C-alpha cells in the first residue's frame, strides 16, 4: 500500500515513516526543501521535497497513495511572526485536505495536539470535554481551528480521523519543539537544574512509539470524524525526578524555583528574540503550560483502537539511555 506522510522530517513523522516502511508499505515522505535526507534509511521510503503551501507539489507527491498522515505542523509556542502559526497549521492543513479530496484518498489521519483542552487541576480530560479556559496563545488556537477544519472536511465526505497526542517523550530527532526531552536533558546535564516550585503538578506523558502506533491504529480502526487522545500515564514532577535518580546515578542539585523566576526568564528571552535572530527556549506561554496540571484519560483509544500504553518506567529508561548516548556523541550542552 502507498502511504503519504507530511512532516516526515519531524519527531512523530520520522518515526512513523520508518515504522510504516518496516511493515512493508511504500511511503511517500514529504519534507521541507531545507530538511536533510540523512534521517531516512529505508528502501521503501520515497522522499518528496516541497512546501505544504504549494498545493500542486502536495498533489504530485500524493498521487496513487491511498492513505494520508498529516503530521506536519508549526509546532512551537513562539515564532517571530504570529501569522505563521495560522498559515502553517490551518492553511497547510487545508492544502493537504484539498489534495486528498482531489487524489481520492481513502482515509486521512490528522495529528492534532492536546491544546484543545485547557489545563485543569484534578480533572482527567476525555475526548468529549469542552475547552474551558479561553485561548491564550496562537499555537493552541491555530491547532484548535485546524481540527475544526478537518471536521468540516469530514462532513463534506472526506474520511478523516483526528489524534491528539499529549506531551511526547522518547528517542527521536531532538528539535526544539520537543519540550519533554529537553526538560529531561536539563535534569540530566549540568550540576544544578531548576525545577518547578510545585512538584506535585501532574501532566500526561506519552511515549513516542505509542504515539506512532496510535496513528497507525487510528488509520486502521478509527471511526470517521472521531478524535482519540493518545496519552500515557499521568505523572508528577516528583515521579519524573525519582525516575531519573533511579536510572542515572550522578550527584546533582535540583533547585525548586518559583514561577515568577521562570516568567522573568521567559520575558527576557522574548525581548532578546524580538531584537535579534535568537529563538527563545522558554516563553511565558511555555512556563504556564509547565506549571499547570493537564491530565488525560485515554480509555477511548484503548477501547476502540486497541491502543497500548508503555509504562512510564520503561519509557523513561529508554529515553534517558538515548539522550545520554546522544550527548556523548555530539557533546550537546544541555538546553
Amino acid at each position, binding site marked *: 500500500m502507498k502511504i503519504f506522510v507530511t512532516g516526515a522530517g519531524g519527531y512523530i513523522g520520522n518515526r512513523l515513516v520508518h515504522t510504516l516502511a518496516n511493515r512493508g508499505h511504500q511511503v511517500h515522505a514529504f519534507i521541507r526543501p531545507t530538511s536533510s535526507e540523512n534521517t531516512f534509511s529505508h528502501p521503501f521510503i520515497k522522499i518528496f521535497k516541497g512546501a505544504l503551501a504549494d498545493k500542486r507539489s502536495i498533489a504530485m507527491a500524493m498521487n496513487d497513495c491511498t492513505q494520508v498522515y498529516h503530521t506536519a505542523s508549526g509546532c512551537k509556542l513562539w515564532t517571530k511572526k504570529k501569522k505563521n502559526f495560522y498559515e502553517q497549521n490551518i492553511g*497547510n492543513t487545508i492544502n493537504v485536505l484539498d489534495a486528498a479530496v482531489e487524489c481520492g484518498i481513502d482515509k486521512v489521519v490528522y495529528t492534532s495536539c492536546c491544546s484543545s483542552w485547557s489545563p485543569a487541576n484534578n*480533572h482527567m480530560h476525555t475526548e468529549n470535554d469542552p475547552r*474551558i479556559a*479561553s*485561548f*491564550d496563545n*496562537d499555537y493552541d488556537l491555530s491547532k*484548535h481551528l485546524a481540527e475544526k477544519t478537518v471536521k468540516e472536511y469530514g462532513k463534506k465526505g472526506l474520511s478523516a480521523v483526528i489524534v491528539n497526542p499529549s506531551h511526547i517523550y522518547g528517542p527521536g530527532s531532538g528539535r526544539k519543539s520537543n519540550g519533554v526531552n529537553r526538560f529531561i536533558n536539563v535534569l540530566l546535564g549540568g550540576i544544578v537544574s531548576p525545577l518547578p516550585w510545585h512538584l506535585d503538578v501532574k501532566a500526561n506523558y506519552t511515549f513516542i512509539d505509542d504515539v506512532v502506533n496510535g496513528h497507525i491504529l487510528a488509520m486502521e480502526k478509527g471511526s470517521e470524524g472521531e478524535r482519540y487522545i493518545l496519552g500515557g500515564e499521568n505523572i508528577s514532577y516528583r515521579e519524573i525526578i525519582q525516575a531519573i535518580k533511579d536510572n542515572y546515578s550522578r550527584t546533582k542539585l535540583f533547585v525548586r524555583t518559583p514561577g515568577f523566576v521562570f516568567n522573568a526568564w521567559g520575558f527576557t528571552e522574548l525581548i532578546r528574540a524580538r531584537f535579534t535572530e535568537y529563538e527563545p527556549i522558554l516563553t511565558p506561554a511555555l512556563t504556564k503550560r509547565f506549571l499547570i496540571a493537564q491530565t488525560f484519560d485515554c480509555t477511548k483509544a484503548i477501547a476502540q483502537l486497541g491502543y497500548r500504553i508503555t509504562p512510564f518506567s520503561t519509557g523513561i529508561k529508554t529515553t534517558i539511555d538515548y539522550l545520554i548516548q546522544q550527548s556523548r556523541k555530539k557533546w550537546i550542552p544541555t538546553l
Partner: protein
Amino acid sequence: MDTYTLITGASEGIGKALAIECAKRNMNLLLVALPGIELYQLASYIRKQFSVKVCEFETDLTEENNCLSLWKLARQNNLRINILINNAGIGGTRMFKETEFEIWKKHIHLNVTSVVYLTHLFLPELIRHPQSYILNISSLAVFFFMPGKQVYGATKSFVYFFSKTLYRELKKEKIHVSVLCPGGISSNPILYLMNHHNNWITRSASMTPEKIAEIAIAKLLNKKEIIIPGKWNRLFILFNKILPPPFKEKLVCGRKIKIKQEYAEALVKGNSLNNKKTA
C-alpha cells in the same frame, strides 16, 4: 427547595465562563444556547466536575415564542430561578451601509427584545424569593461612539439604561439589578485574533471571559450597580470624562478596526493578507 441560575447564551464566551463560575459557587444552572453540541458538552462537564444540578435547553432566543417556551419549561420542571443572567447577544463591527437589515433586526431582537421579554416573564418568579438578582450584559461601547458599532452600541445602551432604571424600580422588591460593561474580550477566535494582533494597549486591555465572569459574579452578589471589569477599562472611562472632546473624537474614530477584522478572518481560514499595516 433548590434555586436555579438562568444563563442565556451559555455555550460560548462570557456565558460559558459565567456558567462555570456559578457552578464553582454551587449554584444550580439552567443553561440556554443555540442548538449545537457545545451546550451538551459543557453541561456534562459541569455535572462531572461540580456537585450542582444542570438543565440545558437549546433554542434561538431571537424568536419571541422561544423565550416563552423557555419560561414554560422552567415552570413545568419547577425550576425556581432566583438569578437571571441575560447574556445572549450578538456583536461585531459592521459598517451600516454594507449590512443587510435582517442582521440589524437580529441584533435588536436578541439584544433588546429577548432581554426585556425574559426579564418580564421571569419577574414574578424572581419576586417570590427573599433575594434575587438580575445581571444584564451591556458593553463598554456605550460610552464611546465608535464607527462600526452603531446598532450594537445602541442596543447595548438600551440594556444599560434599562438595567439602571430597573435597579431603582425593583429595589423594594428585593431584586438587585446589575449591568456588566466589559471592554475588549477574547471570547471567540476572531476576537482573540483582533485583540492580540493589535497594538499594545488593545492587547493589554483585552480580558479573558474567565476573569470577567469571576469579577461579574462577585460584584453582582455584592450588589454593585455598574460592573466595569479591568483596570484599563476603568481608565478608559476616566479618560472619557476628563479628555477634551476633539482629542477624544480623534482617538475613537482613528481606530482601524475594519482592517483588523478582515485580517483576523483571513487568519482563521489559514491565509494571511499581505497587508503591511497589519502584518
